[in-house]
């Protein structure tokens, strides 16, 4: 069977289990006495092992198997594990994650399995007093053991088997034949081993109709039971061990019913992208239809009705598909507790890390692109933000620092903040350095939050006293800011000496379709997403001033610098003279504002954001383009490039 089509699925599912492993290890590290994490870990690793074996990834399966072995010992010992064991399990989880990635890439041979020696060594040390194997216990003389098999002992054998216990009805004729058939059926699902009593006994007159075997299979317990029951005259089937649960007693009547709960399927993201593109075209054509309908409505009023219906339907469709692309932020955030822990450990810091607003949703594409910038900022927070425990004590702070990663839904954007209660950024030091490097003039006396961020975000600017392996190489904030801006988002910083620093990232909820103002500049049209539009005012109705040599307006006692799009975009040629009262669109990104001067406002509508290969030299103020109702493209202005 060609399994390559399942490779992506294997990767996705394994990653979920590995993420769970990391969460559980963190929990276990904090609370060593808790029995839950080890059971969860065991299940997760066991599942990966089963899937890897099915896929033929021998090295992955082997590594998982040996981890499972160690976990089984730990689980049965019931004792709190030593710190080395936890650290070893973290390393083993990392190795497993790498091996999974390599296996899917067809490079399983390259997997580094050096951790195996330590795992095996630890497994020997943690091995509890010898106990009879699962099967031996099953057939042990004590009737109590016979009834139900403790799950803990299931996986002590070498195979990942489920244990199948079959009882043929005592009144049934040919009990041996039935049992034989049942074994054959099981063989269609996987490898059958350790049939007890042996198959030879089935034919004897003494055979009482009961047998037990191990089955290495990926099939669900329900499927296993169904296979056995299909031979007829089966009184009882018990499936134990395996991936899904510690012990599953399957009742066919229950297993058939799947209704009532929300059902999910996995969909290739490219499918959703294509769907989104198609909807985008539909939205564009809808705009055209509305224009045509407006022209013909005099002749036949029905066309208007149809156009309205089509509009409504495509809007609903668009909404649904946007919803389908939405992904809760925990899918990316869940790997950060482990990251923060590792970095803190490396730097001898004590950090408690909290995540808030895990359920907030963002478009999958934005969320995926957000991972790296957040890693940068979190590393920064641990490295530069949080002080060493000794320094914190000196300042009468809790030796354990706190970092909070929070997602909050705002109007049409999501704000993600990374805040620490550390030392804050030393403005004086930054200012000195900025002066030395000629970033700010020598006369500047202090930096506002906004100026501070601009200085920090300069490529190569670093304040780290010593360059550590964690951060401080002068990459980080600039990379993070570039990425966030590329997503149509903004970055804001707040910092207070001795109290801490917070970075706030604001992102649009979805990239694909946004509401925008369509502005006229000369004879050209430009789209300006409403996400950052605060208000519009009319030029000439508000007081004028200048700010740092730029024209500006005064709006409710605040000076807002102006950007004249005619000048910026080089509008020329046959463009008519600008109207006397030009509209000013006020953009607001966090603390920053700018007034965009245009010639006119044409409409407000939903636009489909599309990328284009910008030729060399293109002004860096566009986030994409859209296709207008008449089929002609219009460029989309990037608020972050303007304010």
């Amino acid at each position, binding site marked *: 069977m060609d399994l390559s089509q399942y490779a992506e699925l294997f990767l996705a599912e394994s990653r979920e289990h590995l993420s769970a492993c990391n969460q559980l290890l963190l929990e276990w590290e904090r609370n060593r006495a808790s029995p839950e994490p080890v059971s969860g870990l065991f299940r997760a690793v066991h599942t990966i092992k089963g899937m890897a074996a099915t896929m033929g990834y021998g090295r992955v399966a082997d590594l998982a198997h040996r981890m499972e072995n160690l976990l089984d010992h730990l689980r049965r010992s019931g004792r709190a594990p030593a710190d080395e064991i936890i650290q070893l399990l973290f390393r083993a989880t990392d190795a497993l994650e790498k091996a999974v990635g390599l296996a899917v890439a067809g490079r399983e041979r390259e997997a580094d399995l050096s951790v195996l020696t330590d795992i095996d060594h630890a497994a020997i040390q943690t091995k509890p007093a010898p106990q009879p194997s699962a099967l031996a216990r099953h057939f042990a003389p004590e009737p109590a053991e016979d009834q139900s098999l403790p799950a803990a002992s299931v996986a002590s054998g070498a195979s990942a088997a489920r244990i199948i216990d079959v009882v043929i009805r005592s009144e049934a004729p040919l009990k041996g034949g039935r049992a034989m058939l049942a074994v054959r059926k099981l063989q269609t699902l996987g490898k059958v081993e350790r049939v007890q009593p042996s198959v030879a006994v089935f034919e004897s007159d003494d055979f009482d109709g009961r047998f037990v075997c191990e089955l290495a299979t990926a099939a669900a317990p329900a499927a296993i039971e169904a296979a056995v029951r299909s031979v007829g005259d089966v009184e009882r089937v018990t499936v134990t061990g395996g991936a899904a649960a510690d012990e599953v007693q399957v009742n066919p009547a229950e297993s058939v019913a799947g209704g009532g709960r929300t059902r999910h399927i996995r969909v290739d993201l490219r499918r959703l992208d294509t769907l989104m*593109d198609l909807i*985008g*075209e539909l939205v*564009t054509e809808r705009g055209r239809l509305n224009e045509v309908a407006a022209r013909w409505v005099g002749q036949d009023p029905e066309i208007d009705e149809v156009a309205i219906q089509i509009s409504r339907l495509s809007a609903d469709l668009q909404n649904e598909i946007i919803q389908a692309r939405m992904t809760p932020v925990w899918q990316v955030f869940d790997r950060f507790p482990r990251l923060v822990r590792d970095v803190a450990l490396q730097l001898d810091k004590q950090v408690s890390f909290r995540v808030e607003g895990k359920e907030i949703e963002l478009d999958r594409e934005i969320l995926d692109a957000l991972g790296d910038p957040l890693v940068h900022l979190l590393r920064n927070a641990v490295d530069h933000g949080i002080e060493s425990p000794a320094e914190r004590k000196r300042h009468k702070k809790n030796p354990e620092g706190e970092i909070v990663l929070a997602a909050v839904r705002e109007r049409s954007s999501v704000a993600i903040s990374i805040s620490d209660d550390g030392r804050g950024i030393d403005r004086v030091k930054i200012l000195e350095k900025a002066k030395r490097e000629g970033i700010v003039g020598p006369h500047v006396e202090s930096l506002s939050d906004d100026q501070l961020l601009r200085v920090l975000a300069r490529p190569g600017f670093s304040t780290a006293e010593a360059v550590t392996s964690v951060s401080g190489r002068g990459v980080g904030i600039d990379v993070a800011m570039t990425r966030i801006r590329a997503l149509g988002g903004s970055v804001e910083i707040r910092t207070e000496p001795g109290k801490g620093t917070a970075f706030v990232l604001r992102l649009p909820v979805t990239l694909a379709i946004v509401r925008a103002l369509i502005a006229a500049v000369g004879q*050209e049209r430009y789209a300006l997403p409403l996400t950052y539009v605060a208000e519009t005012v009319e030029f000439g109705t508000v007081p004028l001033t200048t700010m740092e040599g730029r024209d500006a307006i005064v709006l409710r006692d605040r000076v807002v610098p102006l950007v004249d799009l005619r000048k*910026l*975009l*080089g509008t020329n040629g046959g463009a008519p003279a600008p109207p006397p009262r030009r509209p000013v669109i006020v953009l607001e990104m966090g603390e920053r504002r700018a007034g965009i001067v245009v010639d006119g406002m044409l409409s407000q509508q939903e636009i489909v954001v*599309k*990328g*284009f*290969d*910008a*030729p*060399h*030299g*293109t*002004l860096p103020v566009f986030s994409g*383009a859209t*296709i207008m109702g008449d*089929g*002609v*493209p*219009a*460029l989309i202005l990037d608020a972050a490039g303007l304010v």
Partner: protein
Amino acid sequence: MTEGSLVSARLLVFRVGTLACAADVDQVREILPRLPTTRIPGAPPVVAGLVNVRGTLVTVVEGWRALGLPPLSPTPSPDAGVIGSTIILELGKGEEPGNGGGGGGGGGGEAGKLIGFTVDEVVDMLASGETTLEDRKGLPGVDPTLVRAVGRRNGELFIVLDVAALLGPILPS
């Protein structure tokens, strides 16, 4: 670049101003009438703008400017309707980019990038073997780094354009 790879290719022959040119058919995605373009502020003058090709945005290059030719008729008469065509080319597919001129662009590996190229008239399509190509670098008045070969059709010479060398440098790699 060997002569053999040229002879085996089918060629689309078109005219830019008075110059007869050709491009490898494998690099031609489609031929469209001239489409309304949207100016891209900041882009070099050789870029005519952005067009909508059934929902995909494509940057279009003005053919005569790219080849350094004088404009034929600056203002086409309105009665003539839409003059010329836009050829949609796929870069980074087919031949490797030329190693002369602007250092080539694109490069293999990635999926092809689309770019439009305006011409005055699409003339013909030549099947393989219908023409003999000479590995001659250009004709007078044409930048030799943009020319892959020279061919002959009905007695008239035409140049086979090195599309990647011509258009690759315009787009970011």
